[in-house]
Structure formats: structure tokens, C-alpha cells
């Protein structure tokens, strides 16, 4: 196999990984702040991808241009879900917590399935077919742009959490709920905000993915799983962790496709995950 093909595949893995970062960060954020695992995370991504699709075909918007709208819509959805559903079950039994987002995922996914059918859609977008050619390595332009946006957003999130009041409140709540409350932070509000942001990020990822990938109701679960693997690999509870973990997942996918058959690349990711869990359950940066 040519070296350039290998390098191209690995680079693509990194590009894919950076988009996964947005999803992983969201999953990790919800966990960190509310201690809930959002089984529906990937499905919110799917929702946003469809929004981008419809905006493209009915309004003529380019997926990249849809990003602010997709973020806003998903932010609202995340906020509302947290406010009316999840806030109620935060103190409830483990059963309720585990099954609520799970049931939510089913509902979101299958509402789309029922109303729009299982057909695969895609956006025919000049960007999707363009590619950058450097020394025999072809990388899709859409993916490069997606990566650039993902990276900027990751940095923006980091700055937001470090420098703004809301960001600090979010960090405080994720570290110690009671202490944060004592310092005057409205925890319920903070949950809504952080879940909103987290789902919003998944929304951005959805719009980005819409620019170069297929869109159909079943794409949700695989993104949830990939984000989950990323978060565990990187270490539950850490931003750098989620980022590195996501990049690792992208790379593992490429390696899996190279070494075996592309169809089982996710099996490779999972196997690596299992091995990693066995030898280093805390993840790379975990607590």
C-alpha cells in the first residue's frame, strides 16, 4: 500500500476526529455538570443534520451558513429538554436517569424515521466534491473547513469556560454542586445552559457532517457511541481528554479501515476501547 494512501487515510482520521470532538465535548459537558449520560446526543446531531438539509433545499443555505441556526435550534432543544424533563430526574433513581435519555433517543430517532422515512439523503454541494491535492494526498475541502470550524469552536468553548462568568459557574457546578449553590449559582439554570451548549455543539457537528456525509435517521447511535468511546478514552471529566479521545477515535477508524475492511472499522475502535479500558480505565486525562 502506498505511503501516500496511508498518510491520507490517517489525516482523514484526524479530520473526522476533530468533528467528533464537538460531539464528545457535548457528551462530556452534560455528564460533568448534570451527571447524566445523554443517550440521545447523537440523535440531536441527526436532528441538526436534517435541519441543515432542509435549510439547504428550501432556503438555499450552504451547510456552513446554517451553523448558527443549527446551533441555536439545538441549544433551545437542549435547554428545554433539560428544563422540563431532565431537571426532574436529576435526583431520581438510577433507573429513571438511565432510561429517560434512552427513551428520549428512541422518541427523537423514530419520530424522524416515521415522518421522513428511512431513505438516505445527502446534500449535493459543490464543496462536497472539491478536494485539496497536496503531494498525492487528497483531502476533501468540506472536511478541512469542518475541521477548521470544529477547532475554533473547541478553543472558543475552552475560553468560554475559563473566562466568562457563566463558564465559571458551569465549571463550579461540575466540580461541586453544593459549594456552587452556596456561592449563589443557580444550579438548575446552569444545567439548562450547559446542556443547551452541549446539544448546540452537537448541532454544529450535525451541520458540518451534513456537508459531506449521508443523512438518515439512524446515524444518531453511532455518533453517540463514538463520542462515548472518545470520552472514556480521553478520561471522563476533562476537556483535553475529550478532544484527544475524539482525535484518537478518528485515527482508530482510519487504522481499522486500512488494516481490515472499512465495514468493521467501528469494531476496531471498540476493540481498542476494550483493551484500553482493561489496562487504563481512567483514560488519558481522567480523574
Amino acid at each position, binding site marked *: 500500500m502506498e505511503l501516500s494512501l496511508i498518510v491520507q487515510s490517517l489525516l482523514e482520521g484526524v479530520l473526522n476526529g476533530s468533528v467528533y470532538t464537538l460531539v464528545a465535548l457535548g457528551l462530556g459537558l452534560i455528564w460533568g455538570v448534570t451527571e447524566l449520560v445523554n443517550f440521545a446526543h447523537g440523535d440531536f446531531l441527526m436532528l441538526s443534520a436534517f435541519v441543515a438539509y432542509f435549510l439547504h433545499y428550501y432556503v438555499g443555505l450552504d451547510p456552513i451558513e446554517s451553523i448558527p441556526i443549527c446551533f441555536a435550534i439545538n441549544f433551545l432543544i437542549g435547554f428545554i429538554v433539560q428544563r422540563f424533563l431532565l431537571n426532574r430526574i436529576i435526583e431520581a*433513581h438510577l433507573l*429513571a436517569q438511565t*432510561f429517560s435519555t434512552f427513551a428520549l433517543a*428512541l422518541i427523537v430517532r423514530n419520530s424522524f424515521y416515521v415522518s421522513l422515512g428511512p431513505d438516505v439523503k445527502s446534500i449535493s454541494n459543490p464543496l462536497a466534491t472539491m478536494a485539496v491535492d497536496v503531494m498525492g494526498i487528497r483531502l476533501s475541502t468540506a472536511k478541512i473547513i469542518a475541521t477548521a470550524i470544529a477547532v475554533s469552536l473547541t478553543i472558543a468553548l475552552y475560553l468560554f469556560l475559563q473566562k466568562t462568568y457563566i463558564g465559571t459557574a458551569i465549571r463550579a457546578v461540575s466540580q461541586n454542586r453544593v459549594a456552587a449553590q452556596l456561592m449563589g449559582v443557580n444550579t438548575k439554570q446552569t444545567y439548562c445552559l450547559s446542556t443547551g451548549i452541549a446539544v448546540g455543539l452537537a448541532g454544529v457537528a450535525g451541520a458540518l457532517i451534513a456537508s459531506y456525509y449521508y443523512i438518515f435517521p439512524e446515524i444518531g447511535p453511532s455518533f453517540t457511541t463514538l463520542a462515548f*468511546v472518545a470520552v472514556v478514552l480521553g478520561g471522563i471529566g476533562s476537556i483535553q481528554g475529550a478532544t484527544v479521545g475524539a482525535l484518537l477515535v478518528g485515527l482508530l477508524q482510519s487504522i481499522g479501515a486500512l488494516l481490515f475492511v472499512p465495514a468493521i472499522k467501528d469494531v476496531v475502535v471498540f476493540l481498542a476501547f476494550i483493551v484500553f479500558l482493561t489496562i487504563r480505565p481512567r483514560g488519558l486525562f481522567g480523574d
Partner: protein
Amino acid sequence: MVGLRSLDLKSLRRSIDFYIAVICFGFLVVSPLIYNNFFYINALYTASVLMLAGVAWVIMGGYTGLISFGHAAFFGLGAYTLALTHNWGVLPWLGLVLGGCVAALFAAAVSYPLLRLKGRWFSLATLAMAEALKLYFNNWDFVGGSRGIELFRKEYGLEWIYFASPIYYNYVAYAVLIASLIVLNMIVKSRFGYYTQAIRESEETAMAVGINTFRYKQLAMVVSGFFTGIAGALYTIRFRFIDPFAVMDFAQSLQIIVISVAGGIFTLVGPIIGALIITPIAEYVRAVLGGTYGAKFFGIHMLIYGVILLALVLYSPGGLYDVILKLKEGRKRE
């Protein structure tokens, strides 16, 4: 914990469990004789298979607190083991047990990495595990890949569990189910039952009183896997064709979960009630609507499951079993 009865009537509960089981089995055994409808008999068979898988599921989920979203993996492994051994000439009675063993071994193996994760992360991991296994089987020629496996024709009879008339399959399933229930009941009444429930309530306390929590969680997974594998094998011997999407898909895991949660996850009898009530209705609805809506019906199916689950979990996590208990308690108080 919402859902567990707050009145302390252990003996009442014990006798209720028994009566419920008797009533359900009576219904299972007698109704196909009265209502001799092919479709209905099939639905009861599926219900029995789900009952077994469900009871196995609650050993992990309800008793130990390990909520699995990936039971399709055990189900599928049992199914494939039976299919392969059957076609190699092994009697299905042995194949059933082998199916359970393979699933149990797999459970033991994945318990090491998976039990490193706590709570809902564990649950997510079981989901990923089942999907990965399905993907792998779908690309593995040895098991037929996406083409699946079809059981060879054999002589009719009890030896090969192959019958011209479907009703006999049901009685085989019932026998396996009852035997499994007896075994599981013994297991749950032994120290295993005490230890696993302690682990569910407070793992720290369990450790402090001398329970090797990892070992018992692993054991719960192995036992659960074993009986779910048998359930998968039971499915195969009846429907005679399997592929990764029929037996290892998330849909199987979901069905198992829904009937267990609906019936009541903190008791062995819950999944029995749940399966008995939900499965015939689900099958019927699927037959009626499936014709009109085709592929889209599949989505409605899942959508309704999602809504049911959400409602159950928010308002009655103890399931139907809990409702029955409360009714009984109400009457006793008068």
C-alpha cells in the same frame, strides 16, 4: 427508590409471585388449545422467548443494578451457537445449553473491561459492545456474514425439535422456561441474591461487609448471559433462520428491556407479566399496521416503545408488578 413497595409484606410478596407465575403459565399452556390461531401461537412463542431473556436481564438490571442495553449480544451468541451446532449435527437440546455457555463465556470475558465503568457509562458500553459484535458477525464468513444461517431440515420430532404443527414448539419453550425459572429462583434465594442486591444498594457497604463485589457482578453477568443465550437458541430452533439483524440488533435488546421494565424489574415475575401483555399486542399491531405502512411501521413500533418507557420510568418504575402489589396491599388493609 420509587417503585419498590413501601409496605413491608415479604410473605405477601412471595405468595403473590407464585400465584402470578401460576396464572401466567396457565394462560400460556391453555390458551393456544382454545384459540388455535397460527399467528397467536407464534406470538406466544415469541413472548416465552422474551420472558426467558427478560428474567435473565433483571438478574443483572433489577437485582444487581447493572443495566444492560446490549443483551442482544448474548441473545445472538446463543442463537448462532445453536444454528451452527445444529447444522454440524449436534442435537438442539445440547445446542441450547451450548448456546447458553457461549453467551456466558462471552459475558465473563467482557465483564473485565466493562465492569471498570460505573453506572450509566457501563450501560452505554454494553450498547457499544452489542453493536460491535453485530457489525463483526455481519462481516464474518464463518457465520454466514450478512446472509445469515438457515437450519437444515431434519426428521420431525422431539429429538430435533422440528414439528409440523407450531403448537409443539410452544410446549418445548414452556418447559425450558419453567426449568430455567426454577433454577433462577434458587439462585436468587441463595446468598447470590443477597449479595447482588446489596451491591445494587450500596457497593461500598457491600464491600465493607465482606462481599467481593467484582466477582458477584461478574457472576450476575454470566448467569444473565447464560439464560439469555438459551433464549436466543430457543428463537432459532423455532424460526429456523437467523442473521445479525434478526438476533443481534439493538431491536432485540430493546424488546427485552421494554417488557422487563413494563412488568417490573425488581422481580423475576415482572418480565413474565410484561412479555405476556406486550408481545401479543405488539405482534398484532405489527401485522396490521405493517401491511399498510411498510418500513415506516418499524419506526412507529420503536417510537411507541420509547414513549412507554419514558412514561413508565417517570411514573411507575416498578412496572405492572408494582401496580399489582399496591392493589393487593390496598385490599389487605381493609
